[in-house]
Structure formats: structure tokens, C-alpha cells
């Protein structure tokens, strides 16, 4: 499988803290990668380098479809087709739904004059086809601060899908969601797979990641502690390994005993 993204020898230090150390990470095309790890394992830092928000320390390399990318910025990453769905944080609460959908990528002519009608009608269409908003209380002009957690997640994911992202990164998308909302969110992830796109699914919750991921990467204290194809590892085995990682910071002991 050709790699969509390849990250080589990625390190990132913030002052004296090494958030990532020599990480090798890749995502294949039409692959869903589950990224697991404890708080502070470096999941978010890795993702923020991939989206151009942080720059990796010198020596790290990033390839997109086998092209080396230098100085990735947020705008450049979005142009390439890397889209992030951040839990909660990525919506502007006081703005209307349509302004959130088109945040940072407003439809406008070459003088920058907004096509408000176009954005409203597209939002209206997305609401019924993608987000599954049927309540008449919600219109494209509704303010997103009033939405429930699941609705907000739907907005964020719909936004990513609408802009033809090739790689969608979900940063703890199920945090704070109810059971039915979580189910809906996982359906979105399977939808990404069916649409032929790739995704990185970051979560604490192994029960959410395991069913939808093709491959699972475990990060621990800034390094890749191990990775598995999903069909090679059962949920129970994965749980055992993760608790081993949590205790020892490595999977080596487990691998040796298994061999």
C-alpha cells in the first residue's frame, strides 16, 4: 500500500521537555490508523506537526505522497488535504453554523467579498445529508454554542469531509459524548474508510479505536512503543499490552515472551 504520509525521525522539544523522540510514523492510503497513548505520550504533538501548527526539530522529515514537504504551515496542510477534527476547541461558539463550516475557507470572490447565500445553502444541504440535523430549531444561522456535544462533533467532521480532505485527523473525537453520539461518531469514521480517504483516530479509549482502525500505533513518552495490524491482535491482547506499556514503557518484554 502506497503511503499517503510518511514521517521520519520526528523529534520535538519544548524547552527542556522532549515531547517526541525520533518517531517514525506513516499512514497508508485508505487506511484508518488508531493512535493510542496516555496523556503526555505525544499524540497531539505528533498531529500538530502533521498539520503544520508546530514545526518538527531539525532532522525530521515529512513526505506527502512521496513528496518531501519543507516548512509545512496550517494553510499548506489544508491545501494538501490534511484536515483535523478537534474536540470542542475548533468551533467558534458565538458564530453561526455556516460561518463555522467555512471557517478559514470562506467562499468569496477575488475581492474577498463573501458569498453568504452560497455558504448558507451549502450548509443547509450538508445539514440534511451529512450531519443528520432534522430538528427545525437548527438553521444555518443558528449559533453553534447552543449545540450538544454530538452535534458539534458532527459539524466538525462534516466540515472536514466537505473540503475533500484526503487525511482526516480525529483528535479524541469521542471525549464527552454520550453513548449514542459516540456510536454516530464511529460511524463517521467508517464513512471515511468507505469514502476512500485515510484517517488518524486518536483516543484514550481502546474500545472505540479497535473496532474502526486498520492499524494501531501505540505511543509512549514520546516514542513509538509498538504497532499492530488490527487483524493480528485481539482486543484482549491489546489491553494487556497497553497495561504493560503503561508499567514499563516498552512492549519488548511482551514480544519476547510471546516469541
Amino acid at each position, binding site marked *: 500500500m502506497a503511503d499517503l504520509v510518511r514521517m521520519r525521525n520526528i523529534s520535538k522539544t519544548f524547552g527542556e521537555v522532549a515531547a517526541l523522540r525520533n518517531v517514525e510514523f506513516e499512514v497508508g492510503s485508505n487506511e484508518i490508523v488508531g493512535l493510542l497513548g496516555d496523556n503526555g505520550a505525544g499524540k497531539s504533538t505528533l498531529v500538530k506537526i502533521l498539520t503544520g501548527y508546530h514545526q518538527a526539530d531539525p532532522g525530521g522529515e515529512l513526505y506527502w505522497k512521496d513528496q518531501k514537504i519543507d516548512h509545512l504551515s496550517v494553510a499548506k496542510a489544508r491545501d494538501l488535504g490534511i484536515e483535523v477534527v478537534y474536540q470542542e476547541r*475548533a468551533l*467558534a461558539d458565538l458564530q453561526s453554523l455556516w*460561518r463555522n463550516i*467555512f471557517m*478559514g475557507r470562506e467562499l468569496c470572490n477575488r475581492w*474577498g467579498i463573501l458569498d453568504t447565500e452560497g455558504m448558507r445553502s451549502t450548509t443547509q444541504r450538508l445539514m440534511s445529508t451529512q450531519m443528520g440535523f432534522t430538528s427545525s430549531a437548527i438553521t444555518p444561522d443558528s449559533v453553534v454554542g447552543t449545540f450538544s456535544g454530538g452535534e458539534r462533533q458532527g459539524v466538525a467532521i462534516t466540515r472536514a469531509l466537505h473540503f475533500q480532505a484526503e487525511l482526516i485527523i480525529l483528535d479524541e473525537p469521542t471525549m464527552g459524548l454520550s453513548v449514542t453520539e459516540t456510536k454516530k461518531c464511529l460511524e463517521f469514521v467508517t464513512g471515511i474508510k468507505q469514502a476512500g480517504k485515510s484517517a488518524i483516530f486518536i483516543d484514550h479509549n481502546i474500545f472505540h479505536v479497535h473496532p474502526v482502525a486498520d492499524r494501531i500505533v501505540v505511543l509512549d513518552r514520546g516514542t513509538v512503543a509498538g504497532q499492530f495490524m488490527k487483524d493480528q491482535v485481539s482486543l484482549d491482547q491489546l489491553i494487556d499490552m497497553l497495561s504493560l506499556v503503561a508499567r514499563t514503557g516498552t512492549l519488548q518484554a511482551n514480544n519476547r515472551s510471546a516469541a
Partner: protein
Amino acid sequence: MNSEAEGRPVSPVAGRGRLARFARKYAMQIAIVCVLVLLWAFFLWRSPQTFAGYAIYNSLMSTTPYYALMAIPLTLVIIAKEIDLSFGSIMAWGMAAYDVVFLALSPTNPSLGVWLGFVACLLAGLLAGLLNGVIVVRLGIPSLVATLGTQYFWRGVVLVVTNGQGLGMTPVKATFLYPALVGRIAGLIPMQFVWTILFAVVAWFFLNRHKFGAHVYLTGDNTESAKLMGVDVARTKILTFAIVGAAAAFAGFVVSEGVLFLWPTLGQGALLNTLASVFLGGTSVFGGTGSIFGTFVAAFIIAIINPGIVAAGWTAYWTQLIYGAIIVVSISVQALLRRRLT
């Protein structure tokens, strides 16, 4: 729309729903207009001889613009979750630039001196605004502190450059700038008022119908997410400061021309009226919401209080008390409205 597609009859509530939605969306604007109308009706009742005549409106239309011209662009800064305290000094700094250019050219060609002085004034204001923006954004200094500093700095520059001396502005009368900025249309409508409306319309357009305005709202609402979504937060903020700077210089020119004299103390009373117009107009100090319409109406609310109280026969000692009370009550009501509606 949906209910029709599903074959259910459209309920008669739908029409009322749209009205309710409109009222909800524009609650702040409706509230602020109500305040103005109530105040006006009260003053009209207390002193019909003043408020039924034209003279009072003529004077309101020519003096309110002195701070409304700055309050309108300042609304953008506040929506972007920043503040500017330096515009009063920038008014005078722009005029100091005019002073220098005019004095250099006046012996040979006074009218060229006026025009180039006017251009220098606007450029000086723009530059001062840009400097505010750069200090705030690039150095990461909170705008409250940064612009408190530049406020003193520019005032100091003005005093040094002008040596504390004023300057007569009568040569401007010989140029087209005079009727264009402070003349009267048909002898009735002051040009200052026309410019204020123009500022408001242009600012409204850019805030609500242009990418720049969309980014101003997003920046103030959630800076972090705006950055994550690729909005150039730094450029947006710097631009809002620059616009206020240029507008302040313009207002400084208009004020000086209105009284035909440049005072080095120009703009010293402008700070509170201008800020009060923005906040009274429903723009949130927490950023992300606000309207040009609200600021425009609020500027006239502030303008009407003083003459209204005097005309109603009370001593002017009451002015500040009522002025303060109206502002505190209005912004409290806004906070309650906002909490109930969202």
C-alpha cells in the same frame, strides 16, 4: 421546509417563528434602538421647545462624529478581542504631521501644504495604528498595556513637535477639503455626519460581507481555533489596529477643521465617549460579537444625554450620574439578554 417535504402541514406558528428568530438574532440592536427612542421621547416630553426644533439635531450631527468616526472602526478591534486606548493621542499625532508638512510648504504654496498635510496626517495615523498592532501581535504584549504606553508616547511626540503651540486652520477654508469634510449639504446636513454614515456602511460591509470581517469575528471568538483553521490571526489584528489609527487621524483633522484651530490637547476627551459607544452598542468585551449598527446608535445615545439633561432643566451636575447609570444598566441588560439567548 422539512415539514412540507415530509407531507406534514406547515403550522401557522412558522411565521411567528421567523419573527421570533429575527427578534432573537437582532435582540441587541432592537434593544439599543429602544433605549435611544425612550431617551429621546423623555427629553421631548420634558423640553419640547428644544427637541422639537432643528437646531439640536444639527448640533448633534456635527459633534457626535468627532468620536463616532473612531468608535466605528474601534468596534472591529474590540470584536477581535483587543482594545485600543491610544486613538485620542493618535488624533493629535496625525495633526502634528499635518502641522509639520503644512508649515514647510505654506510660505510657497499653502493649498498644496493643506493637501499634502492631510495625506501626511492620514499616513501618520495609519503608521501609529500599525505600530500598536505590531507591538500587540508580534511582541505579545496585552493591548491594554501596549496602547496605554503608545497613548502617552504619541501625546509626548505631539508636544515636542508642536512645542505645545496650536496652529490656525483657516488656510484649509480655501481648499475643497473644507466643504468636503465639514461643509453642509443644502445648509442642513453636516458633512461630518455624512462621513460617519459612510464609515458605518463601509465598516458594516467589511465586517459582515467580507473575508476580513469573518476573520475578525473568528479571531475574537476563538483565537486558537481560528489559527488551527488557517485564519491569519496576526494579520487580522494588526489590520484592525491600523484602521483605527487612520480613522483617528481623519477624525483629528475633521475636529480641528471644525473649530479651525489645532490644539495640541486634541483628543484628550475622546477616550471615554468612544469606548462607551462601542460597549453600549452591544459589542462584547470578551470578543466575538458586536455590531457597527449598535455602535452608531450608541454614539448618539451618549451625545443626546448631556443636552437632554440641561434642556430638561436639571443642572449639568446630573449629567455624569445619568450617563454612568445608563451605561451600566444597558450593558447589564445586554449581558442578561446574551445569557438567555445563547
